[in-house]
């Protein structure tokens, strides 16, 4: 109970202090890429485990079915912080910078609903029900959010639109991969989630 209260307090703090661009983290695609055995930026198993534990804890404490979009954004902010913690130690490394500048760097330009559903089903088999359910809901919330924007916004170019959407899709992919079993994580690629394009093609600069 105490742990839950502390987490909720952290969520509230994160919500009020965050830049509040929840559901957006293009580095989530890097997390998927770095889970592969041939990762350009190797991440130690303990850090993966810590990321998984954090994601699971955050999702297990997430509000229920009647939660508002604002509440889900608060949860998403916490998940993004966990993603940033996973990558923080390598963010400025040469390997990471080379990856970002090279052709191996890719981002999602589209999520495949069927593929995402299949992966969520896989997560449900190895994750506590509450966390798996929350993962479904936050995935849906993120997709809803970007769907709303894509349908109603004017971008300067198709590339800007692709990049904008990639932030959302990559966030989702980065969370889902966290909760897959380690052996499964290693077989996942961005294409397991949908269509991917090169970072340069998408205009990624960070």
């Amino acid at each position, binding site marked *: 109970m105490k742990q839950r209260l502390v987490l909720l307090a952290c969520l509230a703090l994160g919500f009020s202090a965050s830049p*509040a*661009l929840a559901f957006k983290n293009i580095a989530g695609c890097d997390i998927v890429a770095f889970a592969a055995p041939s990762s350009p930026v190797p991440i130690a198993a303990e850090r993966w485990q810590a990321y998984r534990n954090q994601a699971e804890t955050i999702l297990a404490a997430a509000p229920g079915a009647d939660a508002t979009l604002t509440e889900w954004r608060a949860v998403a902010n916490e998940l993004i912080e966990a993603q940033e913690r996973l990558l923080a130690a390598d963010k400025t490394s040469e390997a990471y910078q080379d990856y970002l500048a090279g052709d191996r760097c890719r981002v999602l330009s589209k999520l495949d609903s069927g593929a995402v559903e299949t992966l969520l089903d896989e997560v449900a088999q190895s994750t506590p029900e509450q966390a798996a359910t929350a993962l479904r809901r936050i995935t849906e919330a993120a997709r809803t*959010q970007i*769907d709303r924007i894509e349908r109603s*916004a*004017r*971008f*300067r*170019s*198709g590339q800007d639109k692709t990049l904008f959407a990639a932030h959302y899709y990559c966030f989702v992919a980065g969370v889902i991969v966290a909760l897959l079993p380690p052996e499964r994580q290693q077989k996942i690629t961005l294409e397991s989630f949908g269509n991917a394009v090169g970072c340069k093609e998408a205009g990624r600069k960070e």
Partner: protein
Amino acid sequence: MNRRQFLMSSACTCLATATAKVDALFAQEAPATAPKLYRCGTPPPTPAAKIQANRVITALRSYRVNFRGKTVIPIRFHIIHQGTQGYLPDRQLKAQVALLNRTYAPASIEFKIADVNLHENQSWFTHEPGSDAEIEMKTTLGTDTAGSLNMYTAEPGGGLLGYATFPWWYADTPQLDGVVIHHASLPDASRAQPWPYDLGMTAVHEVGHWAGLYHTFQGGCDAPGDDVVDTAYEQNAATGCPLRQPSACPGETRFDPVENYMDYSDDACMKQFTPLQYQRIKDMVGYYRYQLSPQTSRSALLAQIRKSIE
């Protein structure tokens, strides 16, 4: 099933249930002396929302409803700025409204400036849609969203020129209703360096969404596309100022609608709405934004249609 078949199929299904009530209701609602204005009539535009909008249109047609009168829409401008950045003089606002009036005249819609307010706020100035800053800005500033168009000017990030709320979102999130446009997108003949988006077409485009239109490339080549029959299926958004060329969609014999206000072409190349886009605007504004017209809000026929749909 292509878009035409999809729409016909929806229409036939709805007609079967609605036709029986039509004559009596319409006679009751439209006596010979009545005014010409016979108005009847968030979740995101998920497939369910799109079907709902289609049902509205089908019901309006089956009840033989046509919105013939003029709708005057007051615009409440909220000029969000950061120092001198984003500040807009009156002449630009007037030029923008004049452009809106020219483009929306065939839908019998007239805009007029009701309010202009300046607000200096850094996080609102650079906010993105869906952010806390958007919600804070709109819940703080939004005024009479049922009876007017709240238009925010700011500098949204992420390559955005503007974004809007659809009319069918209004019931769930009335406080978020309105249009946000980039401050540099308003018409400005005095700009030292021309920008491809500074002729005011972003507001035209976003008000199109606010009035119920989708992008012409919505859904790519898949039915029902943008739900408007007289715009061609378009695989991808246009960029720059492309030449008209045949659609790349299989079975589509028409040209890509690159000159349509609801595409992504540069401002100088945006030139038109189609007749059925204008029709959809009238229908969507009349049905969902009925409080813009007091006559509509009192319409018994509107209430009847709403009851049959919802």
